[in-house]
């Protein structure tokens, strides 16, 4: 699943490590989600959405 995580992170000038710390996950997890290698669970997706103050569908995009 595609997502806007990298863009949103860059807008806030956060490194992957910064985002990982805020989400309480490993940096490897952030990298896997960003690159589309791993789709987060619904609870983690909500945490990500809450952190950026957006809705889940504004961050994670449906596959065409």
């Amino acid at each position, binding site marked *: 699943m595609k997502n806007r995580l990298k863009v949103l992170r860059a807008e806030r000038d956060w490194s992957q490590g910064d985002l990982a710390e805020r989400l309480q996950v*490993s940096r490897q997890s952030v990298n896997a989600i960003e690159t589309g290698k*791993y789709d987060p669970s619904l609870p983690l997706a909500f945490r990500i959405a809450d952190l950026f103050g957006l809705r889940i569908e504004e961050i994670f995009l449906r596959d065409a």
Partner: protein
Amino acid sequence: MSQKAAKTETGFAGRQPALWAIAFAAALCAIAYCEYRGFLGGWRSLPFVAAATLLLVPLTKAANNRQAAAGALSPATRRYNRRMLIWSLGYVLCLGTAMTVRNYLDPQGALLWGIAVLPSVPMIFFVWTLARYVVEEEDEYLRYRQTSAALIGLALVLLTGTLWGFLETFGVAPHVPAWWVVPVWAIGLGLGQMIMTSAERRADRT
């Protein structure tokens, strides 16, 4: 992830996990070759096996550092690595004790049964370690990664076990003791980790 979890240790033992893994594998191969040629065997191999097993200490330390550098060392992973090291050392200790008792005391009956079972006892701790990791790991991606690698290990055990079993049945391969399932599974686990890492690197490049 806590600062403590991200802390890396330095020093000779804390570097290059691949180097220590190769050294460990090479030591085991050398011991196996010496046993095959008759230079070693039974209890005489034990000091060499014990020395080779000690290589797991720097290997674990180096693996911790590698995982920390990759941003993948959670507190649960750190505990898993430590428990796996304890299991490995305990396994060699129990195996050594069992072989020494068998060779020097020539046990019979219940004692023979006891020492035959002894090397399998650390397996309880091993299985518990796997189960605890799945329960304790709060990072869902790391848990998914480890579970996937474990399934690849299981696939390797099932495939090689079935293949070798039929080769034995048809008389074209020698008998292999069933306790080989654990080393084969461990190789599969390592292979699984390598496959996952390779997939991550491919995803990074795209």
